[in-house]
């Protein structure tokens, strides 16, 4: 990690006072988050705490009502998902959203779109540059499929993959955008203990290869093992932030998770 020292000084992502309302519902109220390069950060909280809403604001699907988002020192374009992708943030979804009718390989190749030209004229006339680019896209996509461990499935139609492999494919597709921050929305949902352990290895490897990870997860034990920092949301507010150990023993967190006066 070359940028780690630098990242400690100025965070990769800095969200300040993010608020988002839907009608009368305050989905997020003044959530702030600093995230360093090369870190794995967990975003946890009960259902409806605003975790996915935060992801949607972060990736430009929603515009925040208040607050600012800085990414690598630049303000993030609000409400423009394709521009956010270009800045270097990629994500996966809680409910898997692959291009179901396309092949596994093509799904990842779409992810390369943001880093390629794909001009109309080039596509129409099949210029040498376009062909070279297409070859590079294919090669990189295959590499990423191997990286997440589903290289052998490249030619299959995405919807025919097993559930766990579909999650891996979503990660490969997100990585294809060359993100500096990978946001994973419940990546381990529906996985058994073995699959979770393997997914944890993959996430650590992604971090070691230079991409920061922000993940939403319900399995607190798994998150605590994996993450450097944890942020806890409850009713749209950040109730705790810190190392897993600190957060785990925070009385507010225990109450949010276990209800009144729990353990």
């Amino acid at each position, binding site marked *: 990690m070359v940028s780690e020292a630098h990242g400690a000084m100025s965070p990769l992502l800095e969200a300040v006072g993010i608020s988002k309302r839907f009608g009368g519902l305050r989905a997020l109220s003044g959530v702030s988050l600093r995230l360093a390069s090369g870190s794995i950060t967990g975003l946890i909280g009960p259902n409806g705490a605003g975790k996915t809403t935060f992801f949607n604001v972060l*990736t*430009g*699907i929603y515009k925040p009502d208040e607050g600012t988002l800085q990414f690598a020192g630049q303000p993030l374009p609000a409400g423009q*998902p*394709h521009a*956010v*992708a*270009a800045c270097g943030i*990629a*994500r996966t*979804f809680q409910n898997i*959203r692959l*291009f*179901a*009718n*396309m092949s596994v390989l*093509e799904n990842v*190749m*779409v*992810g*390369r*779109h*943001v*880093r*390629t030209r*794909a*001009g*109309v004229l080039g*596509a*129409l006339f*099949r210029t040498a540059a*376009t062909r070279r*680019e*297409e070859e590079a*896209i294919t090669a990189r996509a295959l590499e990423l499929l191997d990286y997440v461990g589903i290289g052998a499935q490249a030619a299959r139609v995405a919807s025919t993959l097993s559930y766990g492999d579909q999650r891996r494919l979503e990660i490969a*597709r997100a990585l*294809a*955008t060359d993100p500096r921050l990978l946001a994973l929305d419940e990546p381990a949902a529906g996985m058994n203990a073995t699959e979770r352990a393997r997914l944890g290895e993959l996430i650590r490897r992604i971090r070691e290869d230079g991409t920061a990870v922000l993940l939403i997860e319900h399995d607190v034990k798994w998150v605590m093992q994996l993450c450097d920092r944890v942020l806890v949301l409850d009713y749209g507010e950040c109730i705790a932030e810190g190392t897993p150990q600190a957060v785990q023993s925070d009385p507010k967190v225990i109450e949010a998770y276990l209800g009144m006066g729990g353990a």
Partner: protein
Amino acid sequence: MDTFLQQLVNGLTLGSIYALVALGYTMVYGIMELINFAHGEVVMVGALVALTVIQLLSGWGWPVPLAVLLGVLAAMFVCMVLGLVIERVAYRPLRRAPKLAPLITAIGLSIVLQQVAALIWGRGYLSFPAVLPPVSLAWGGVIITAIQGVIVVLAGLIMAGLLILVQKTALGRAMRATAQNPAVAQLMGVDTDRIIALTFVMGSALAAVAGVMVVAYYNVGNYTMGFMLGLKAFTAAVLGGIGNLPGAMLGGLLLGVVEALGAGYIGDLTGNFFGSNYKDVFAFMVLIGVLVFHPNGLLGTRAREKV
């Protein structure tokens, strides 16, 4: 037998034109589930622009092939701009509106375009100057004219090119991704607004070429010519399975052949009670038949592969 083969040739020619127009309907539907009923009028505008340019240039004594080529290019340019404007002005503001709103807009737009065309070109018929040599190939009793050959071959090349573009290029991949899930495509860096605009532009370019083919084939053009043609092409798109590119091609060819054969045999079959002017009936009988027995179209599936 000669009637059959001759009508088959005529039908394939007509069907190639239907297919090009049907592709415009099906591409737009595939990417945003909108029936762009103004598409037939784009064909009309393309035809009339080309006619005007060709008449003008050949009037100046320019060589005929050059006049035709420039006419086609002018038609494509005007239609592409028109497609872009239609998407931007008529449909983009209604992206999140209930499905019925853009449909009504499309019908309104169609009327507006017809009336504007009537103002520009008048309500009479414009004739296509006899620019192509009236050569033909006689094969047994079947006559294939030069213009028929040009239409079928050119349409075939364009369709093959479109399929390659959509299936094999990064742009096509972005189009298919947008069709399947625009929100996710955006997160992959696909500028879906641009892709949608581009889809309209591409469909309009095909419409322009089809428009020129129609006037070159029938030798006349008129401000109302887009209506029936659009309706037939839409029928072709539904016949093949709307949203499905090969479906639109197949549907177009099939519809052209059915119509031509119907026109060729209806007199014999009904003791000349009905004449070939009833040929339009066949297109819509086919549409009704498809909607009743195979509502998803020939190549359409319930989990449709769009664009």
